[in-house]
C-alpha cells in the first residue's frame, strides 16, 4: 500500500517537474543566484498551474518516467561496500527510467575530496549530483550559488526531521541534501569472547576502561586496544567521538569556538579526549606499530579476538561482515567511557548527503530530481541492502533497519535516542591542515595533550584566518 502511494507521489512529482522545467527553463539558467524564498514560491505556483497537465498525463507516466538518452554524472568518495551499494541503487534507477548514470570516484580522503568539490564549484565544473558533507561543511561551497534547492519537493517528507533540519538553511528555508548512506555511531567495539574469558565488566568510566586494559594485558596475549592510525580518518575517531562529552559540558562550545569566544584548551572534556589517546599509548595498551595498522586489519583482529577493543564507528561492522562475517556476533558495543556512568553517551555522524548542481541543464533537471526522490524510497534502500548490511539509520521515514543487522549495531543504535550528539564538524568547520598528523603524534607519544592542543589551536587559527571567519 505504502509503495503504491509512493509511486503515485513520484509520478505526480515527475509531471509537475516536467512542467517546471519547460515553463521556467528560460529564466532558471541566468537567474541562478536569485533568492531562495522567491524561487520556492514560484516553484509552488508552477506546481499549482500544472495540476491539469498532471491529471491528463498521469496514465502514461504512472509506470515510471522515461529518461532514455539522459546521462547523469555523479561523484562520490565512498569505497568498498558502500560504493557497491550506491551502484546497485543507480542500476535500479537506470532500470526504472532508462537514463544512464556515470559515477566518478573522488579521493577517499575526506579533506581531499571536499577540496576537489570546492575547487570545482569555484570553477563551475560541478557534477550533476555529488556526495557532500553536511552541517557546517555545507557552507564551504556556497550552497546558495551551487546547490539545487529542494524545498517544495513533496517527497522531502520521506526524510526524517532531524536530518532535514541540518540540511536546511535557516534564513532562506532552502533544503539542500538527501541522505546518501546510513548514520554512524562512534564508541568502543569489543570482543565478547575476550571479555567473557577474562570476566570483564563493561567499563562505565575511563578509569574502569584502563583497568580492563590492564587486566587484558596481564592475563592474556590479546592486545587491549587496536589503534589503526595509518590513515587520517582512523587516527581521528577516538578524539572526535569525545565531542559528545564536550557538548555535554558546554552545549554551545562549537559556536563559541567558531566565534573565538572560547579556546580548545579551556574545555576539560576536550582535553580528556587527547588524554585518552595519550593514555593508551603511555600505558602501552596498543599494538606495536599503530601507524602501519590499517582499519581493515584492525577490524579482522577484533573479530578474531586478537585485540579486545577498537574505538570506531559503526561502519566498521560492514568491514567485519565482509572480511570475517562468521564472527560478526562476537563483537559488542559500549559508549566511549568518560568521567562517570551517569553521563555516558555517544557521538554520531549524520550520513553525507546527495546534493544536486544548482546550475543543472534544463533537460537533466527532472531526471536529477527523480533520482533524488528515488533515493529516499524503500526501493532504493532495498537495492542498497543487496550489497551491504546497513550499519546505522537511513534517516528516512518508514524505512527501518532490516532484521539482519549485527547486535553491535543495534546496541550502538540504542544509544542514539538515549544520549547522543553529532560530532563537532557539523557545527564548526575550523580544522587545520595538520590535525591528523598532530593526533598521530599524540597516539604515538610524541606530543603530550598540552603540546598537542597548543598546536591544534595554532593550526586551526590558520585555517580560520584563511577562511576569513570573523574574529580570527
Amino acid at each position, binding site marked *: 500500500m505504502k509503495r503504491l502511494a509512493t509511486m503515485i507521489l513520484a509520478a505526480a512529482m515527475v509531471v509537475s517537474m516536467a512542467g517546471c522545467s519547460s515553463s521556467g527553463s528560460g529564466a532558471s539558467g541566468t537567474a541562478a543566484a536569485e533568492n531562495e524564498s522567491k524561487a520556492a514560491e514560484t516553484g509552488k505556483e508552477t506546481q499549482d498551474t500544472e495540476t491539469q497537465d498532471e491529471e491528463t498525463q498521469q496514465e502514461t507516466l504512472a509506470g515510471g518516467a522515461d529518461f532514455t538518452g539522459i546521462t547523469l554524472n555523479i561523484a562520490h568518495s565512498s569505497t568498498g561496500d558502500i560504493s557497491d551499494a550506491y551502484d546497485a541503487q543507480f542500476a535500479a534507477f537506470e532500470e526504472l527510467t532508462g537514463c544512464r548514470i556515470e559515477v566518478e570516484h573522488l579521493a577517499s580522503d575526506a*579533506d581531499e575530496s*571536499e577540496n576537489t568539490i570546492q575547487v570545482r564549484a569555484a570553477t563551475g565544473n560541478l557534477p550533476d549530483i555529488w556526495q557532500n558533507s553536511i552541517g557546517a561543511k555545507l557552507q564551504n561551497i556556497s550552497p546558495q550559488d551551487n546547490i539545487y534547492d529542494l524545498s517544495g519537493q513533496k517527497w522531502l517528507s520521506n526524510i526524517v526531521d532531524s536530518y532535514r533540519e541540518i540540511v536546511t538553511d535557516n534564513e532562506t528555508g532552502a533544503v539542500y541534501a538527501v541522505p546518501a548512506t546510513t548514520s554512524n555511531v562512534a564508541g568502543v567495539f569489543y570482543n565478547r569472547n575476550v571479555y567473557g574469558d577474562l570476566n570483564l565488566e563493561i567499563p562505565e568510566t575511563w578509569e574502569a576502561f584502563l583497568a580492563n586494559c590492564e587486566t587484558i594485558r596481564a592475563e592474556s596475549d590479546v592486545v587491549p586496544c587496536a589503534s589503526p592510525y595509518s590513515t587520517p580518518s582512523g587516527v581521528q575517531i577516538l578524539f572526535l567521538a569525545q565531542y559528545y562529552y564536550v557538548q555535554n559540558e558546554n552545549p554551545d562550545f562549537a559556536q563559541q569556538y567558531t566565534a573565538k569566544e572560547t579556546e580548545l584548551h579551556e574545555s576539560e572534556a576536550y582535553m580528556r579526549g587527547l588524554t585518552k589517546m595519550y593514555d593508551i599509548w603511555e600505558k602501552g595498551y596498543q599494538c606495536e606499530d599503530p601507524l602501519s595498522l590499517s582499519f581493515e586489519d584492525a577490524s579482522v583482529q577484533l573479530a578474531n579476538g586478537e585485540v579486545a577493543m577498537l574505538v570506531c564507528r559503526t561502519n566498521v561492522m560492514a568491514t567485519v561482515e565482509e572480511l570475517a562475517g562468521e564472527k560478526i556476533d562476537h563483537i559488542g558495543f559500549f559508549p566511549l567511557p568518560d568521567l562517570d556512568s551517569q553521563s555516558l553517551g555517544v557521538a554520531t555522524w549524520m550520513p553525507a548527503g546527495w546534493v544536486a548542481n544548482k546550475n543543472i541543464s534544463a533537460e537533466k533537471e527532472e531526471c536529477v530530481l527523480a533520482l533524488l526522490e528515488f533515493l529516499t524510497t524503500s526501493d532504493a534502500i532495498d537495492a542498497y541492502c543487496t550489497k551491504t548490511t546497513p550499519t546505522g539509520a537511513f534517516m528516512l521515514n518508514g524505512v527501518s533497519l532490516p532484521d539482519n543487522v549485527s547486535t553491535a549495531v543495534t546496541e550502538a543504535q540504542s544509544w542514539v535516542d538515549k544520549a547522543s550528539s553529532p560530532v563537532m564538524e557539523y557545527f564548526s568547520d575550523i580544522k587545520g591542515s595538520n590535525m591528523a598528523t598532530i593526533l*598521530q603524534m599524540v597516539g*604515538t607519544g610524541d606530543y603530550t595533550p598540552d603540546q598537542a592542543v597548543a*598546536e591544534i589551536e*595554532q593550526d586551526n587559527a590558520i585555517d580560520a584566518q584563511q577562511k*576569513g571567519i570573523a574574529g580570527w
Partner: protein
Amino acid sequence: MNRKRYPIWLAIPGLLIYITIFVIPTFASFYFSMTTWNLKTAVFTGTENFRTFFTMTSTRAALINTAIYAVVTCSAKVIFGLLIARYVCSGIRSGNYLKIVIFSPTLLGNVVIGTAFQSVLEPTGIVNQALSAAGISAVRFLTDKSVALAACCAIDIWKGMGTAVIIFVAGLSAIPQDYYEASAIDGATDLKKFTKITLPLIVPTVNTVLTLSLIGGLRDYDLIYTLTGGGPGYSTEVIGSVVYKLFSRGSYGLATAGNVILFAIVSVIVFPLNSFVGKWEERL
C-alpha cells in the same frame, strides 16, 4: 634578411602556451601569495601569509627535511651515478644489462613505486623477513621517525639513479678515445686517467645531473606523499607536501605563499650553483 628568413610566428605557438600556462601564473602567484583567496575573490593581506607559513610547525620540519632530502639524493645520484656509469662503460660484458636494469625503476610511476615499497617495507614485509632471517629485529621503515626520511631518500635514489647513469654514460662516451690512448702511451694508471682526463671533461655533465637532481629533490614530493603522506609526525614532511595539504584544506592564498617560498629557495640555491646554464646560453 634575418627577419624574413626566420619569421617570429614560427615561435609563437610554443611561446604562447609557455607564457600563458607557466609564466603568467608564476607572476600572478606573487600577488595571490599576499591574499586570502577562495579562487573567486582574493582579499589582500600583505605579507601575512609569509609570516603565517613560517610559524607553522610543519614548515619548520619541512624546511629541514627538504634540505636533507635534496642534498642526500642529489649527491648520491651524482657520485654513484658517475661511478656506475664509469663502470658500465669500462668495456665489461654486462654493461648493457646493467644500463637497462638500473634504468628500469624510472619506467614506473611514483604511485606504483610507493605501493610496492610500502608493502615490501612493512613490518612483516620481505625486507624485514630477510632481516629477521639474519637475526636482526624488524625495522619500521616508513613509520619510525628516525628512519622514515632515510627510507624515502633511498627509494628516490633507487628510482632516480637510472637517469643519472644514462646522462653520465652519454657524457662519458662523448670523450674522444684518443685522449685515453695518448695517456696510455704515457703510462698513466687507471686512477690517473680518471682524475686527469675523465673528471675535467665530464664537469659539464656533472653540472647537468647536479642541477636536475637538486631541483627535483627540492620541489618533488609525490614519491614521499605516496610512501608516508609526510608522516610519521612531521618526519618526512617537505615543502611540496605542506603546500599540497594546505591546498587540500582550501587555503589557496597560504598554499601559494608556500609555493613562492619554495620558488625562492630553489632560485637562491640553484641559480648561483649552476654556472652551466649560463655557459650553455653563451655558447648558443
